[in-house]
């Protein structure tokens, strides 16, 4: 059996989760604490990937990232590589596609922590960053775990966007869902069965973990 797609999928999901932890955390923090009037607009933008057909998202990303576009040509100049139909392009697409799965649980967790423990930390001389790292993050640990697991799993399950932006290049963009599609197209049902059953089991375990975390580790600020 060809392990390439499985390895590639795991790599894509891991990199996407790490990038989204870095980008989604400040965005979720801002959304949880801002009082600006544009907050609903930003929240709606963040949630768009939940409702848009992946083909729409993929289509716009293709327009945005292809070598003739501003971003795409800059990337080609900098790396000599194309963003479309490459692993880097897939990471960008996955980050956009999985954004709400990172931001929403984190925003809920940060809002749940509230200002009270942060004020207490400030009165004990913790800087805003210090209070974030040593109070808000540990109190939101469950939110971080849920957000990371969901982001990872959702990236593993993406298909339409990958097909639009990445195509089907072995070891570059050929992730598990694409491989399954190809197996079915070429009537290799046995291979399709193995990968499909694998994804099914993986997704179930992930959701089981998420629901167990939410039930078993309630963390409260006193």
């Amino acid at each position, binding site marked *: 059996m060809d392990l390439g797609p499985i390895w590639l999928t795991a790599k894509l999901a891991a990199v996407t989760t790490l990038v989204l932890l870095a980008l989604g955390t400040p965005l979720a923090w801002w959304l949880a604490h801002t009082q600006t009037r544009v907050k609903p607009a930003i929240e709606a933008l963040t949630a768009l990937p939940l409702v848009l057909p992946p083909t729409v998202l993929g289509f716009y990303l293709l327009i945005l990232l292809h070598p003739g576009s501003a971003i795409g040509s800059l990337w080609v100049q900098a790396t000599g590589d194309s963003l479309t139909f490459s692993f880097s392009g897939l990471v960008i697409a996955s980050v956009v596609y999985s954004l709400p799965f990172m931001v929403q649980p984190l925003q809920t967790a940060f809002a749940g922590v509230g200002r009270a423990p942060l*004020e207490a930390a400030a009165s*004990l*001389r913790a800087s805003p960053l210090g209070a974030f790292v040593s*109070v808000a993050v*540990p109190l939101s*640990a469950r939110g971080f775990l849920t957000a990371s697991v969901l982001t990872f799993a959702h990236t593993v399950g993406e298909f339409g966007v990958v097909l639009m932006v990445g195509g089907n290049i072995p070891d570059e963009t050929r992730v598990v869902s694409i491989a399954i599609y190809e197996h079915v197209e070429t009537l290799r049902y046995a291979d399709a069965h193995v990968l499909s059953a694998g994804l099914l089991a993986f997704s179930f375990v992930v959701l089981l973990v998420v629901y167990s975390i939410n039930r078993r580790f309630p963390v409260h600020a*006193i």
Partner: protein
Amino acid sequence: MPSESLELDVTAKLGAFDLEAALALPLDGITAVFGPSGGGKTTLLRTIAGFERARGRIALGGERWLDSSRRIHMAPHRRPVGCVFQDARLFGHLDVRGNLLFAARRARNGGATVDDVVAALDLGSLLHRPVADLSGGERQRVALARTLLTDAKLLLLDEPLSALDTERKADILSYLENLSVPMLYVSHAVDEVALLAERTLVLADGRVRAFGATREILERLDIQSITGRFEAGTLVRARVVEHDPQYHLTTLDVGGQHIVMPMSTRLAAGDFARVRVRARDVALATARPRALSIRNVLSGTLIDLVREEDSPFAEALVEVGDQHLQARITRASADELGLSVGQSVYALVKSATFDH
């Protein structure tokens, strides 16, 4: 040592409520903050700590914490104040020891040590307990201990002991009294703080109604109706003369005359105590009464008399030596006795309290 003071001239708006306060708070000893709920006590503390957006000026010595005309707003964590919040606000992801170390690690000039506060607030048996398991009183003790560990120049205590029993509260209050750190202490229980606060600030409807020496504030007849929660009365400085173990009584010297109270073994003969005498426990007579169950009869001079309109009562202030007593009597008796300021009267004290 001439003490610094916290100069304050601020307005803070919170929805429909607004706070306006201008005062110079000397940074020594304990200042009690009293007033009806919703009067602005918590908002005042939060404004000083930097948690509320306020306009105006706050400065400590030459250090400006707030000057809205110059767009200065010092971040809360840079202000050398320590806050104990009404709701304790312990960190749920840490145990008791972790909460204390959080503060100890960030204290710059090392105030109290962890061992000090653990001993003073009797936290030894709680150190490894998760904070979720603590009772309300235990939480308040940990929150207070945590704040005492910071090297604060001013402590802002918002009803920090409300969930503690009387005995424990008295122990902690006497510990706080002996700390050299100045504090603003919000409390609803006048007996709790009146005994140890040098100054009292009365806040109502977001305005400072009175600010001054606790004794004077408690004697001011005009603000007692505003504050409502005040149980009218005065603080009296008394010297312990002797204990009578047979009748369980302690004799005190008040302004050169003796009164007798239920015995307090916490005090030794010669000690000075502050005693709170409630106005409703004091009656007046124009001649020394005989054959009376009340043992405490003090002769003095009537120095103030306020007849409350549309009320059966009048408030009288009596000077006994260098001490003052307040009496709440009926307007009818005041008129019948023909009381007038300056005349000699006898104050009959039914009871008095001293907690420590």
